[in-house]
């Protein structure tokens, strides 16, 4: 799709994005993704050629009054959690 004008992607950039997305990566994955992302981002770059398009989105108001309905019980909401305590989800420490 592109002709040689590909954006270079560094391992450091991949690590930064992985950090933002909260995904740990191995060194191997970083190297592999950096290489593959260059090709994919080169395809994304071709969107530059898309013309300006006038559009009028069809928006419909779907507001309605709140109605109270039965939801999940506390036990049901907790049943898939690996760790719970006193009826709460237990998460990792904040800092």
């Amino acid at each position: 799709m592109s002709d040689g004008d590909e954006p270079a992607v560094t391992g450091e950039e991949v690590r930064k994005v992985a950090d933002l997305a909260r995904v740990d990566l191995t060194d191997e994955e970083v190297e592999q993704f950096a290489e593959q992302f260059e090709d994919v981002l080169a395809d994304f770059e071709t969107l530059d050629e898309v013309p300006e398009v006038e559009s009028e989105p069809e928006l419909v108001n779907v507001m309605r009054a709140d109605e109270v309905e039965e939801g999940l019980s506390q036990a049901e909401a907790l049943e898939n959690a690996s760790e719970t305590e006193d009826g709460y989800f237990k998460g990792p420490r904040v800092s």
Partner: protein
Amino acid sequence: MAELNAYITEQRIEGADDGPLAGKTVAVKDNISTEGVETTCGSKMLDGYVPPYDATVVERLKEAGATINGKANMDEFGMGTTTETSHFGATLNPADTNRVPGGSSGGSAAAVAAGEADLALGSDTGGSVRAPAAFCGVVGIKPTYGLVSRYGLVAYANSLEQIGPIAPTVEEAAGLLDVIAGSDDRDATTVEEGDDSNYAAAADGDVEGMTIGIPTELVEGADERVVETFRDAIDDLEAQGAETVEVSMPSVEKAVAAYYVIAMSEASSNLARFDGTRYGLNAVEAGDYDDLSEAGNWNEAFATAREEGFGEEVKRRILLGTFALSAGYHDKYYAKAQDAREWIKQDFDESLQEADVLASPTMPVPPFELGEGLEDPRTMYLADANTVPVNLADLPAISVPAGESDGLPVGLQFVGPKYGEETIVRAASALE
């Protein structure tokens, strides 16, 4: 026949005694929630997750008397075109077990093609119902956006995806769509056009006087064996009284790039919920710790769970999506992709002024051999060239068997105007 590995979980869920689907078995893709029955999305992240509620489409299947006979294998979170990215192993194509069934709803299509289920549900974000239907030689429908409730479907790219039926015949696929279509208070994007539908009645094979537009851009890039089978099917339709016109849609050349920017961006946001706290693999299990307090702070613990829980393709898409939305790149990629989406919509509108339906090969290539595409993700993304424009334009489309090439199934795709399900069902039924 070799074990196809079409199911992740084989468990029967009985529906009502009577109804239009009484006596029928339906395989349900494993990203559609089933109360009390494991729903994994083909991911290690959700291995063991048991939803406490049913998706709306599952409720409707049960009310219609269907027996759900298992949860069908799929590419992890729907991210793939081959069903090889599943954490639970690849599904094989019943037409040739050395080849992939297509994806991401590969288990659903393989189960129907092999007679392991009478019918199936898949989900289609960029072709995930139509691609496996084409590769396995069965019928698959991607409904107009909003026709079918997504409540209980685990989200990948929610502005693009719809749940759709897979069946051996057009009439049965349309009949299954009749069961699942219709408005739902729990999904505010649903519309009323599918209420009280009778799409099955449109499978009358009557294409006399119908105008079929053929977008040149969706044919000229395809494998010549596929094109030959496609042309034969078009000749057949002309012999039955249909007229064909060539149409041009320059925008579709940008569809794959626009699709992947939008789908990956939405995925990066939708999959942020998987941090191992409320459900799914948590840091203790992922990092082999004795206690959560050892797993570090929440950033570190979440990153540990997500590294171990997600497979390579899912990580790739989350990272590319995060990149496309990040400061400095949002306007360059995401905003441009939205412009392309609008351009594609307008191109479809114009083409569908000239024709009642549009036709193209569903997939530009025959089914891949197992392992063929995994090496290079970009090649795999390009295989979606003919299916993704439809999702970007929110339109309905059907893949119907057009014949075979070298003994392998070739699918033909019809695209209709918004809520034009009857027209695509009618056109497709003329090829049976």
